[in-house]
């Protein structure tokens, strides 16, 4: 096995291991909960019989490690247990909402990523120009705004004053793609603005960092035009950091939807998670939390692997 394959495999293994650790910790955390879960959920008035029945139903009467393994094998088979609040299968609750969240995040990503990388490149290319400085101030401001501020501002302008888009982003299975794109435009735009700001700054920093390298001066002294210096000499070496920036922001998008979903009452996972946390519906919190954590870890692992592949020192290791 080559060094490269070993590196990639070890990154994958590390990602999976992290996911297990996170799931186990989550489980232990709930385990350490002060007081009795059944009691907390059913309230003080519950009779000992109902409590016992409830515990048996949830499997709370078994040893913790058995329950963890049960739960884990359930997860692997696609069985995430039942919601404490509604009694419905968590898998059913998740499926459509998962699709909705991915739709919204994907919508924003498709628009934000190319714009952000291009803006970052241009800002680096025209460093300290008026464009660069105003982009910097704009990005700093956008990063500083809470998502709900941006969201409500957009609602105020585009739905209340102008009436172009609805205030709420309600979609269901009957909504057509065109309608969905229209209805979810404002939540997507909120995400796009925040993500572009972050990504642009990071891309610019990555490129500028590379532009300070001696081989860039060498390229210029070979008579290479400026655009070609950036595209051919700087960009390939800035790929690893840029890939990381993109992964980080995609991960952020999927997570960042939580607040935006709440503002626009969008039926996604974030909304579900917030409700479940408020009602302390642990199976749902666990399942959604694990999904978000898994996506985040997966994206980071993917970014790691892509960075390794983009590094000629590792790709052509002797």
């Amino acid at each position, binding site marked *: 096995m080559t060094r490269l394959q070993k590196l990639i495999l070890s990154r994958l293994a590390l990602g999976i291991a992290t996911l297990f650790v996170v799931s186990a910790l989550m489980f232990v955390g709930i385990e350490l909960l002060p007081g009795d879960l059944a009691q907390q959920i059913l309230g003080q008035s519950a009779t000992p019989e109902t409590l016992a029945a409830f515990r048996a139903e949830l499997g709370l009467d078994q040893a913790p490690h058995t329950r963890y393994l049960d739960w884990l094998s359930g997860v692997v088979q696609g069985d995430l247990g039942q919601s404490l609040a509604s009694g419905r299968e968590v898998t059913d609750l998740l499926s459509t909402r998962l699709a909705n969240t991915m739709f919204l995040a994907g919508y924003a990503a498709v628009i934000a990523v190319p714009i952000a990388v291009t803006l970052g490149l241009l800002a680096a290319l025209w460093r300290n120009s008026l464009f660069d400085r105003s982009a910097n101030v704009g990005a700093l401001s956008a990063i500083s705004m809470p998502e709900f501020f941006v969201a409500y501002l957009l609602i105020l302008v585009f739905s209340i004053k102008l009436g172009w888009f609805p205030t709420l982003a309600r979609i269901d299975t009957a909504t057509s793609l065109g309608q969905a794109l229209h209805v979810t435009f404002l939540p997507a735009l909120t995400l796009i603005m925040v993500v572009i700001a972050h990504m642009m700054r990071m891309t610019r920093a990555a490129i500028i960092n590379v532009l300070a390298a001696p081989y860039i001066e060498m390229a*210029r002294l070979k008579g290479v035009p400026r655009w070609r210096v950036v595209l051919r000499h700087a960009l390939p070496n800035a790929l690893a950091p840029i890939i990381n920036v993109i992964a980080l922001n995609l991960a952020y998008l999927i997570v960042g939807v939580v607040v935006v979903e709440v503002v626009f009452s969008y039926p996604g996972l974030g909304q579900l998670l917030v409700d479940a946390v408020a009602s302390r519906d642990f199976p749902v919190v666990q399942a959604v939390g694990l999904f978000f954590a898994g996506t985040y870890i997966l994206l980071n692992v993917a970014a790691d692997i892509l960075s390794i592949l983009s590094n000629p020192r590792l790709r052509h290791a002797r």
Partner: protein
Amino acid sequence: MGNLLTIRDLRLEAGSRSAPTVILEGLDLDLDRGEVLGLVGESGAGKSSAGLAAMGFVRDGVRIAGGRIDFDGTDLARAPQRTLRRLHGRRIAYVAQSAAASFNPAHRLIDQFAEGPILHGTADAATAQADARALYRQMQLPDPDEIGFRYPHEVSGGQLQRAMTAMAMACRPDLIIFDEPTTALDVTTQIEVLGAMRDITERFGTAAIYITHDLAVVSQMADRITVMRHGREVETAPTRRMLDAPQQDYTRSLWAVRSIRKPEATGPAEPVLTLDGVSAHYRDFKALDDISFGLCRGRTTAVVGESGSGKSTLAKVIAGLMPPGAGRVAWDGTPLAGHHDRRTKDQLRQVQMIYQMADTALNPRHTVRETLDRPVAFFTGLSGKARRARVRELMELIELDPDAFLDRRIPELSGGQKQRIGIARALAAEPRFIICDEITSALDQIVAEGILKLLIRLQRDLGLTYMFITHDLATVEAIADEVVVMKEGRIVESGPRAQIFDAPRQAYTRRLLASVPQMDAGWLDRARRDAARARSAETAA
């Protein structure tokens, strides 16, 4: 007037326009076609800036504030970027100090070679690649047909430097700027690179500006030499005349540096620190392999070797920064623990260390007083007035004025002053033995000379024992009583200075000695012949 390049009254500035820092002032240079001009000076003399300015190029934050750079009829100081771009790489090429950093790690050598000719329209891709192979062969690179298809990290430093020279040649420029191209290389590698560079510029009749701080190197490469200092020209003359009869005091002082000789050691040679079968590993790499020798009281033992020879690891093992895998280090007959944590305070006090990079060896957040006060307090237990007096005394020992320097912060000192403070910090412990790890290699020659003289005086006055680690044989010759030659973690040869320098027994020692640049005219040719012969002897042995 040079018929290729004429620089007149050039002035470069950096910083704000109202209070600029002057980098070059009133510089005049002339260069004829096919001529090689050596630019010599210490760090900060402005020689690199002058070299780049000859291309009409200045680094970020620097600007051309006046003067003309006339290259074959074009004034580069005023030429638009388009014009400069057409000249760069095509008619004026550049060879940088660190080839490893100046090749783009993302592209293969041959693609970087071909980029210039294709961009400038002097060749198509196939022709450029064929030419690259031919030039690689002329630069005596191993495997010239294939080496271009490697990435920079797959090629050694000396080979990269040659590949970069080949790349500079790609469009057959009229002028090449060599900016300290061999400074980062080991001496034995340097010879091959210098030889290949000189051959190729001669073959194509290319003019060159060769920038270096090393007089011996420039004397082999240049037809004429310009000495620079503080951004100004000191004097210019044809190479032989410059070497034989320098006119200016500054130039003469540069020439004189190589003349220190420590007086021969007298008295009995009694070992104070002994190493016995010491080995050390970094993971599975054997950095030291069965090292045994003794360091004699009141004498200087120079440990000399090229990079990777294990000489710095040896310093770490003795100091207790790296426990040896096998063998023992003994002080006055008592074994020293491998790790400094387990040595007694008195053992720690006896063995002190001075570092190569004075910049990183002193905490930049401390003042000179803080730097010296702590070890004095720590090791001598002095307090109050006695301690303050001791700190002042240390400053006097290292020949720096206590009143002027004690309250300065470390970053406000020059390189040589920092190194002196490093020495004072070692002396604060009142040690008997000091490890000097490449302490002069980051310094300019004149400054280094001052440090060496100081060390010799301190040894005489305080009866110190030194272990002097260096790759520079000229320094060894200046200060050593005993010499240990190392290669790949082993001792090749050891003995008194005179024996090693006058009658070396091992082929490697002979090759190392032959590689030390000399100022006489025929040195490079002689050294290349000797090196080739020594290498075949080594292979045979």
